[in-house]
């Protein structure tokens, strides 16, 4: 565990910077183990066991998104409402793939992009927000049906076009234009 007393870091000073080598406290946990022990496989199995709850979890997330939409309907896109809507959509974007609903992630990501890239989010039409939230709901509701992928693709495409039209018309916030993904998987 983390020790309360620890040796001091080694510091090398240069003209405009210092290079500090902290004591390698975590070195104590490195050792050798059997090749057949596979912690990743164990974790994947545990996650698979948990997956029976994932649909309920996704429905909870959709509820949160719905509540945030309701707040926007009642109070407009003031900072608090906007942040709650963004957080709800961002949570879905981040989790939906892990929970087994990748098509939902795309629509939720589209709503995040709309909120982030618009110069003035208060000007986003409520109808456009509704369309995104309703699309998330529809894809969730229909996910087990045979035509679900086609429906999701159609909804995603048309929402992207509508959002793009809006962003072109309104002007993007240059600081918030998403650059290409570079994070390693």
């Amino acid at each position, binding site marked *: *565990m*983390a020790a*309360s007393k620890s040796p001091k*870091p080694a510091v*090398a000073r*240069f*003209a*405009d*910077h*210092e*290079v*500090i*080598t*902290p004591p*390698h*406290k*975590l*070195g104590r*946990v*490195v*050792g*050798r*183990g*059997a*090749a057949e*022990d596979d*912690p*990743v496989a*164990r*974790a*994947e*199995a*545990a*996650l698979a066991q*948990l997956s029976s709850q994932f649909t309920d*979890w996704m429905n*909870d*997330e959709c509820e949160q998104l719905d509540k945030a939409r309701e707040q926007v309907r009642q109070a407009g896109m003031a900072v608090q409402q906007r*942040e709650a809507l963004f*957080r709800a959509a*961002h*949570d879905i*974007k*981040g*989790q*939906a*793939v*892990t*929970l087994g609903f990748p098509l939902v*992630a795309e629509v939720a*990501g589209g709503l*995040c992009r709309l909120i982030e890239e618009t110069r003035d989010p208060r000007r986003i039409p409520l109808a456009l927000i509704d369309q995104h939230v309703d699309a998330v709901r529809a894809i969730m509701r229909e996910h087990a049906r045979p035509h679900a992928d086609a429906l999701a693709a159609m909804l995603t495409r048309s929402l992207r076009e509508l959002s793009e039209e809006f962003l072109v018309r309104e002007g993007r916030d240059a600081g918030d234009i*998403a*650059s*290409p*993904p*570079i*994070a*390693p*998987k």
Partner: protein
Amino acid sequence: MIRIDFNRLRFLVIDDNAHMRRILRTLLHSFGTREVYEAEDGASGLEAFTHIIPDIVITDWVMPIFDGLELTQMIRQPGANANPYVPIIMLTGYSDKRRVLAARDAGVTEFLAKPISAKALYHRIMNIVVNPRPFIRTSTYFGPDRRRNVNLNYVGVERRKGGKADIIKQQALFDKVKSSA
């Protein structure tokens, strides 16, 4: 085969989403960790960090009160807390270049884009434990060395001033373990 004794590591997971915390807890427990502490926003995360003194922090970016980036900047304050060198994994739905660079410049140790996988999380932890990086302090930055590799083909101005001793190669723990075996 190099192994980490997860049983001896203490984690602090900071995420406003209870489901994501549950997933992380499940993964860390499966790796063998017993001690996984949780906080649901940046403020309670900082408080927990001060009291728990974790070995590794895993934080979300988008959170209420203050976010994961602000939390990282608060932790990376030499002298202000028990362990400004603590490894921080930023786990986030963002993956674009601008955000990754912002996280790096705030002092994040590893960046992990959602969707999370057991393998990606394990590799980030392994990298933190086995290949620690020195810290750099300048007038504008305090955090893990942002130069992960020495590029022998680099052509351009050396931005760090101070001569050859600038580059301090730290022997990776992996090599130490290998040579002592």
